């Protein structure tokens, strides 16, 4: 069983190796490349599920205790770099792997061919995501952010075309500036505390003098701003809807989790710093109102958007705003439901980006875009079909019925109506917010509930309006689907249904995750076994 202790490094190593190997066979060997990419992603899913089971104690963990710590090169924590697996990290890893597998299978049907190096970039994106969720080191968090961003720059331009390049350039410029701010923040925090290890950081902050504390707060605020840019918080999110709307659908689908990396990092630092009083961006009223304004801005965007892909982008902003408001809410009881909501909304947005591409397939705008990109890469001759839209292999009978049902399910999920998990998530959030009042002003609970319900209403109005335009368009031909396109979307929606039907058990797990997350001392003493005991005072 000794090799099991090396599991935490696999989510980083497997995609890295897969990306390197995927560069070797030429782009024409589709089957081999597809098999390699699929195998790598399935391995990541298996590893993530095993880690999930281990952190919950269902499988005996390869390490003592709930939190797994993997010291790279076996250098102990303050000196070496560590990977840390706790429940939250395991949840995020599993979510990434599930979403990645679904979007990968979907993209193999046709989008993978719209440009070059899709599969290696996709694996590098996964490596960055997994690394960012696992790392216990501030500077490594920066490095993994850069890995996932560099891959996402390539992916957002996948398929080329003027719209993508235009939206992509804004996306890249904003994120490059954010990376520079991240560096300033990391350097400042290191300059004051003398450590980059997140657990040791939590200890050292408590021992800073007043001057050091001021400098540290400046660094932490800059760090928070970076995470808020990634999370798509208003007013730092104007790049988001355009970039997501212009990206190829499977890319946009997997990007649904990209904003949640910012939310994750914010939550991780907030819980580690909470004992010493986290500075503004990491919690409290400030974050709560930022979340509310983000929800409002996203809802206005949802109502105003003219295309479904833009609506989907604004819905991502709304879900980010909901999470930020929940984390800013007084007390810690909202964290569990918020994690449940996070998982449900990521799965739903991923499915939604793909289903709207299928539904809009034979309509003018997207067909044009696709034709341009296929032309640009000269792929028509090889595929021996005149129109890429007719490549669809076996046409599923009643494809329209399937699309309608899935679209409907996604709308219910994203707006938070029963019977899907979106409803359970929002219900649990509002219920927890109402239960808190002894600690929080009643106004907050009221505002929070109103924002959640009104944003759901806005989503409902916009989606039914655009849905009518897309689905009741009598002049359109029935879109042709392939099984491997319809399958992943159906699986994502079914997973949300399972999440809702089994809400009791899954919510218990998310509550346990939130509980262990807020127990920062456990994290610190797991990472720094020796020093952790001495500084408990």
């Amino acid at each position, binding site marked *: 069983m000794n090799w099991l202790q090396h599991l935490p490094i696999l989510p980083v190593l497997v995609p890295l190796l897969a990306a390197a190997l995927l560069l070797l066979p030429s782009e024409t060997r589709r089957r081999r490349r597809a098999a390699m990419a699929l195998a790598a992603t399935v391995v990541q899913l298996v590893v993530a599920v095993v880690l999930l089971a281990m952190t919950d104690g269902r499988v005996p963990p390869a390490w003592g205790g709930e939190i797994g710590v993997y010291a790279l090169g076996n250098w102990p924590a303050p000196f070496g770099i560590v990977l840390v697996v706790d429940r939250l990290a395991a949840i995020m890893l599993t979510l990434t792997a599930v979403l990645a597998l679904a979007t990968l299978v979907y993209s193999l049907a046709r989008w993978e061919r719209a440009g070059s190096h899709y599969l290696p970039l996709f694996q590098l994106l996964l490596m960055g995501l997994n690394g960012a969720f696992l790392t216990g080191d501030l500077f490594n968090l920066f*490095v993994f952010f850069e890995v996932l961003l*560099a891959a996402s*720059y*390539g992916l957002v331009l996948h398929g080329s075309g*003027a719209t993508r390049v235009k939206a992509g*350039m804004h996306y*890249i410029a904003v994120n490059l500036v954010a990376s520079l701010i991240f*560096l300033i923040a990391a*350097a400042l925090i290191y300059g004051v505390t003398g450590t980059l290890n997140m657990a040791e950081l939590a200890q050292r902050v408590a021992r800073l003098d007043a001057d050091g504390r001021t400098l540290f707060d400046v660094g932490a605020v800059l760090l928070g701003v970076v995470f808020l840019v990634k999370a798509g918080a208003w007013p730092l999110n104007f790049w988001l809807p355009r970039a997501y709307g212009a990206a190829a659908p499977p890319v946009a689908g997997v990007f649904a989790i990209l904003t949640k990396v910012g939310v994750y990092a914010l939550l991780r630092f907030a819980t580690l710093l909470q004992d010493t009083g986290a500075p503004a961006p990491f919690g409290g009223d400030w974050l709560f109102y930022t979340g509310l304004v983000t929800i409002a801005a996203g809802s206005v965007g949802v109502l105003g958007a003219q295309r479904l892909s833009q609506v989907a982008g604004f819905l991502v902003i709304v879900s980010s705003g909901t999470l930020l408001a929940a984390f800013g809410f007084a007390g810690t009881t909202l964290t569990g439901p918020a994690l449940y909501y996070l998982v449900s909304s990521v799965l739903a947005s991923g499915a939604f980006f793909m289903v709207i591409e299928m539904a809009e397939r034979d309509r003018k705008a997207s067909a044009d875009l696709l034709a341009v990109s296929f032309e640009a890469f000269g792929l028509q001759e090889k595929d021996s079909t005149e129109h890429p839209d007719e490549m669809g292999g076996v046409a599923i009978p009643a494809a329209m019925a399937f699309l309608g049902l899935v679209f409907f399910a996604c709308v219910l999920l994203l707006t938070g109506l029963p019977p899907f998990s979106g409803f359970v998530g929002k219900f649990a959030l509002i219920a927890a917010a109402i239960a808190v009042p002894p600690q929080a002003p009643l106004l907050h609970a009221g505002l929070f509930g109103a924002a959640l319900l009104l944003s759901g209403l806005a989503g409902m109005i916009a989606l039914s309006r655009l849905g009518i335009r897309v689905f009741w368009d009598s002049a359109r031909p029935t879109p042709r689907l392939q099984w491997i396109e319809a399958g992943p979307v159906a699986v994502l929606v079914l997973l949300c249904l399972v999440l809702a039907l089994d809400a009791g058990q899954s919510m218990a797990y998310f509550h346990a995750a939130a509980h262990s997350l807020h127990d920062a001392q456990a994290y610190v003493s797991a990472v720094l076994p020796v020093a952790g005991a001495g500084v408990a005072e």
Partner: protein
Amino acid sequence: MEIVLALAIGTLAGSGIYLLLRPRTFQVIMGLSLLGYAVNLFIFGMGRLRSGAPPVIDPARGADPALYTDPVPQALVLTAIVIGFATTALFLVVLMASRGLNGTDHVDGREAEKQ
């Protein structure tokens, strides 16, 4: 020494931010590069300024940490330089693609309307 470094970082960062807010893609990439230099110098400064102190242990000098400067910021600067280099190259490619596709080097892909 501190005031010189601080002024250098300030000048670089100020020019970088000014260029970043300009409408031409070439100005934006110059701005990003200048900001990158400012940030790299800043990280370097976070290891405290000392002259004549190497970051790597030299057997002839002995192992007293007081004789050496903090090696961590220097390692961070190296990483930051490499990453900055890669992202600048990538941004340059996007800039060229945008110029080719839109026929203009405006950051919005089209010229602003003249008043």
